[in-house]
């Protein structure tokens, strides 16, 4: 078999494109309800220890699986949707995807691996190392799905192969899996985590085979030296040292600044990134930022985006319609906010069309 071809996507080329997303939905996945104190969620991997599913002598951590949130969205039959996974340990890939999503018509959802050193029980300086390991061992593959007129096209960057040695190292590096190694080596449980991860990757490979792009490897080329510093977020915020969400926000804002300048509105679900970037009369945000409820952010983001479009088509707003990014995490997309995310994502993926109807004389 010949080596799959690489599709090089240059950051400058993305910026030069005409498209514009209705809303970009971001989920920084820290695999539990971290803002409330490390409680188990649908994002928690099997056998991880949390405060509501501790690694006990009888029951070793979470009983159940980590839901696959991204792939199913490819099969809702949407009009225009950009879906991707990302990892801040691969910043060029992540920033490229944010820009690509913002410059794609319809709507977009990016699921980002987001280290939580408090919840995952490791020291702050290991955050990037562990994040990188997650993709390298096959736990967090980086892939992209572009849905156009109901048909998904899969492509990937890396992380589809399971490297068992690195996988064990990955599990061992975090306290939330400690009970699988000490006092006894729980081989069955460790194998189960690897098995479910492998099954997911096999499914992905099958999908890439069936719905793969002509050049299935996406390579985002971002010259970081030429990128302007982001202007959306002040350096000061209340996130923990080594927090994945902090890296996510910084890289997201850098790409978004390049695309949107300051013509952007952020919406945040209740989460760590919410409580630690705007408190009392002090805000880290230099651009408009909205928080409504734990779960409703996706709907709020859509409401704001739609309002600007309808006001523009009615002649009540004359400027350029702002970009809207919705940030969620801490279980608010997997669990309580799923209904909102799903509905808003699918609606905004075809709202371009409704807007066209409204523009007609």
């Amino acid at each position, binding site marked *: 078999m010949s080596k799959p071809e690489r599709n090089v996507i240059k950051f400058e080329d993305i910026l030069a494109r005409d498209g514009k997303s209705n809303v970009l939905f971001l989920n920084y996945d820290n695999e539990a309800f971290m803002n409330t104190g490390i409680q188990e969620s649908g994002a928690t991997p099997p056998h991880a220890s949390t405060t509501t599913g501790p690694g006990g002598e009888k029951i070793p951590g979470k009983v159940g699986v980590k839901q696959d949130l991204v792939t199913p969205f490819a099969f809702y039959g949407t009009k225009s949707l950009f879906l991707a996974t990302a990892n801040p340990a691969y910043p060029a890939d992540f920033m490229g995807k944010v820009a690509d999503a913002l410059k794609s018509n319809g709507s977009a959802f990016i699921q980002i691996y987001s280290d939580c050193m408090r919840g995952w029980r490791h020291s702050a300086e290991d955050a990037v190392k562990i994040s990188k390991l997650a993709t390298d061992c096959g736990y967090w593959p980086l892939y992209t799905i572009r849905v156009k007129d109901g048909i998904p096209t899969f492509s990937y960057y890396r992380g589809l192969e399971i490297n068992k040695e690195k996988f064990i190292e990955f599990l061992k590096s975090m306290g939330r899996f400690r009970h699988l190694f000490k006092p006894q080596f729980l081989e069955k449980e460790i194998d189960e985590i690897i098995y479910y991860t492998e099954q997911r990757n096999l499914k992905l490979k099958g999908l890439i085979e069936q719905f793969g792009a002509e050049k299935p490897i996406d390579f985002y080329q971002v010259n970081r030296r030429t990128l302007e510093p982001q202007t959306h977020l002040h350096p000061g915020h209340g996130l923990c040292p080594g927090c994945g969400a902090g890296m996510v926000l910084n890289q997201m804002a850098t790409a978004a600044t390049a695309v949107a300048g300051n013509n952007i509105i952020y919406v945040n679900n209740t989460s760590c990134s919410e409580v630690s970037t705007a*408190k009392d009369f002090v805000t880290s945000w230099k651009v408009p930022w909205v928080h*409504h409820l734990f779960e409703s952010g996706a709907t709020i983001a859509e*409401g*704001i985006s739609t*309002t600007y479009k*309808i006001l523009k088509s009615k002649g009540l*707003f004359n*400027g350029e319609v702002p970009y809207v990014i919705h940030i969620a995490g801490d279980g608010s997309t997997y669990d309580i906010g799923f209904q*909102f995310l799903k*509905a808003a994502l699918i609606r905004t993926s075809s709202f371009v069309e409704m807007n066209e109807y409204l523009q007609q004389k």
Partner: protein
Amino acid sequence: MSVEPMKLFFKEIKEPIETAMIGNYAVAGGVTQTDPDVICAFPITPQTQSVEGLSDVVHQGRLKAAFVNVESELAAISYSTAACAAGARTFTATASQGYLLMSEALPMAVGWRVPLTMMISARAFNAPNLSIWNSWEYVLTDYGWNCMVSENVQETYDAAILSVMISDNSLFPTMFVHDGFIISHSVQKLWLIPDEVVRRLTPKKHRHTITTKHPGVWGGIVTPSFFMEGRKNLDEAKKPVLNIMKKAFEEFGKATGRHYNLIETYNLDNSSRMAFITMGSMCGNIISWMTKNKDIGLIKIRAYRPFPYEELQKIVQEHNIEKLIILEKSDSLNNLLPPFSTSIATALYPLKTLFRCFIVGLGGRDVTRDEFAVAKKKMESVNDMKGQLYTYLGVRETKNKIYEVNR
């Protein structure tokens, strides 16, 4: 056009038109005339025709607006709040379980001071059974929304326009209520207001919105050092609202010839010194019963929230009312009185007026004239405020006999 009763609203209304339609379509028409930018709701009986009518005027091109079908009432209120905060004139509608599902987001609309309007077709909530018929679920919770209650189709049509005026001028969301099925689904006569008059009454005003021109934070976390100030500010901001409502009624009266007030009264200077006090569709029935029972009055609450307690005290004092018969379409399993009666009792406290609460018409049961007579008779023998203060009226005792009402 696919919804027949909406046809009147497809042409510019130049003169007042006399017509007949159900409450929900009348509201859809009234809302159309106020030129909303965003309409977002989730269907629930008996609210549905109001949004059906609106989707018709949008999809047929009469009204330029974003009509958005969402996945739940909680999404509907969230969407509407966001759209309104971003600068759109926004309308939503719900009832019953939908209103309860909205509960989590209802306070945010108040906190953000969005001039949103919502129609409620009052309907019972589920317990112990499902009922799609009329009760007053909207009195259960109070998160600071303005609330206006309508007696008939004309009033609810007018309320659709009045609510926009009140919301825009007070910067608080306003809900306007009519009784489910009794008004929402019954065809009644009404006069439509010319479009030009509605435009004049409801101009779109500049207000603070979510904008990149003035970046700001909406709804961030505050510590105990600041939360109370936010609540106190809302309380202060709420104080002028009753006057704003009064002014809106005045302006509306001048433009249309239909005069409303926070509280409306009938035949208070009677020999018995007694009066009924209630709101909504029951009032019409009481007035028609009063044509043969002239020795009793009626107080109708039109503005339920904020509660016009000073006006009520003034009315009770001026007319020397000694006893009030509260008719309420909701109950309370725990409190001394159900919610509407609680507000009245609080207002009456310094006056020491005697009253009893009669719980009637739950789950859409007809409130009959016999019941008014029974309530009046019972009240005649009340001389203190001791014992249980509420009674259920019109409840089935056996299969064929209604408790305490002679048939």
